[in-house]
């Protein structure tokens, strides 16, 4: 992958419809003595077409939050809704890229079959499924690995497959849980730019969880900082950077450095 500037179709600012609304969300694991209060009271919203990054220290409940948004678990308090509808199970049109790429792909399926997996029995014809899978693989730059099995690919490649799987699903909302936490720095930078490019092209509303402050500022339109447990939203920052970003030139902008420092301070003083 090249690491040069990200092409974006245009710089239209996102529309102002709230797509994802989280109100007073709380989650406690277990009960009695062993209860763990992972999320206390989390409130924020995400607009359509927005790229929101959520940062917080390890164990802050970031994964828990995403799992609630994905309908994989029911919150103990409060609620999350998508397009005005309360989330009670996995919502239609929501895709997720999991933290542990090695375990989120089916080892018995080829790459292209993994990408097409969510489209099975969805009224999508076999031919169309294949076409959409190949197109998605094309857009993450690994179409030539379509016939391989996931375990034949490197970690970064595997995460591309996971991203392609999300894309082929053509979601409205994409949740990403520390997707690049365990790949090397160069690969990570490539994957960040890939994610940005895809988001700009498709306009998919994206919620990106990370513990890396640089990453959050570089990728996000807004950065939501979570506190330590019991977790609430500490602060929300708008990112005053142009939507078109570049790993070198964006990161040398004073706005970038400033925001990065501000977010870091916010987390330090938690």
């Amino acid at each position, binding site marked *: 992958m090249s690491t040069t500037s990200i092409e974006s179709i245009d710089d239209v600012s996102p529309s102002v419809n709230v797509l994802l609304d989280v109100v007073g969300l709380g989650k406690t694991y277990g009960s009695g003595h062993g209860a763990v209060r992972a999320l206390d009271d989390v409130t924020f919203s995400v607009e359509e077409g927005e790229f929101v990054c959520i940062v917080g220290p390890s164990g802050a409940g970031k994964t828990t939050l995403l*799992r609630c948004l*994905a*309908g*994989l678990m029911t919150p103990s308090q409060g609620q999350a809704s998508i397009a005005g509808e309360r989330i009670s199970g*996995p919502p*239609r049109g*929501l*895709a*997720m890229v*999991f933290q*542990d790429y090695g*375990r*989120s792909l*089916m*080892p*018995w399926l080829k790459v292209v079959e993994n990408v097409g*997996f*969510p489209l*099975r*029995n969805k009224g999508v014809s076999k031919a169309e499924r294949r076409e959409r899978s190949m197109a998605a693989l094309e857009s993450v730059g690994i179409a030539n690995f379509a016939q391989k*099995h996931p*375990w*034949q690919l490197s970690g970064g490649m595997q995460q591309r497959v996971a991203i392609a*799987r999300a894309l082929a*699903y053509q979601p409205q909302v994409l949740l990403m849980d520390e997707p690049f936490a365990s790949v090397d720095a160069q690969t990570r930078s490539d994957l960040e730019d890939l994610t940005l490019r895809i988001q700009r092209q498709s306009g998919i509303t994206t919620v990106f969880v990370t513990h890396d402050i640089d990453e959050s500022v570089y990728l996000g339109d807004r950065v939501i900082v979570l506190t330590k447990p019991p977790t609430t939203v500490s602060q929300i920052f708008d990112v005053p950077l142009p939507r078109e970003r570049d790993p070198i030139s964006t990161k040398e902008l004073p706005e970038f450095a400033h925001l990065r420092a501000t977010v870091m301070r916010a987390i330090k003083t938690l």
Partner: protein
Amino acid sequence: MIVRQPAEDSRRRGWRQLGDLALRLAVLIGAGLVWELYARAFPSLFIPPISAILANAWDQWVTGDWRALFIAPVFLEMLAASFRRLVPGLIYGAVSGIILGVALARVRFLGEMFSPLIQFFRAIPSSAKIPMFMVLLGIGDTMKIWVIGISVALPLLMNVMDGVRNVDPTLLAVAKVYRVGPWTRLWGVILPAAAPQTFAGLRIATMIALIVLVLSELTGAADGVGYYVLYAQRMFYVLDMWAGVLVLGFIGYLLNAVVSLAEVRILRWHRQSTSTAR
């Protein structure tokens, strides 16, 4: 860990396989030779030389009729009688073992409730189950099929349960988030993920199935390979008896080969993904 060279020269692998085959043949012939020499050195009424056993089998079971692939009808009838019991028993046992295993693993309450009962029935030796089922079902084929089926289902079921319980939760979460239906979740995620354990269970189960078949045919039957061996023994047809034993061994070898072949084909991903560096 071993990193499999993906581009291992296929020609070299071919040679190695050929070498393995030659070794196997050599070992087989060697074992036959040991038997032959032993039988000649210590002549005994009950342990005849293998050459005599094979010659006798040839006389009985090989005909000049090429249309029947030179196989005598008596041989086919004998095999057919055994397979008429073995195959349905194996199929009923395997299918019910897999279905119950998945159900008991997915519905936790059922699993906890019936695991001890299943463990208990599994602990009853198959050979002790035969008299039990003779009370229930008499000595006919129904009894044999049932005992084989149950002896196959119980160990298989435990393995399937284990496999299904250990399906990676991330994969199940993927299936949920992408809203695949229960059918795809079962056939596309749960069963493939549990396949390695299922095959391990199937391997044990087929061996048990054959043991139970032989035992049940030795206990009460009027045809089949086991009966042939028993009859020959009673009549002191020592050569026939040993020939029957060899046929049983051959069936065991065949069954094992079929399971291995299916395993190699279906679990290629598993073998390779676990031998690739982790």
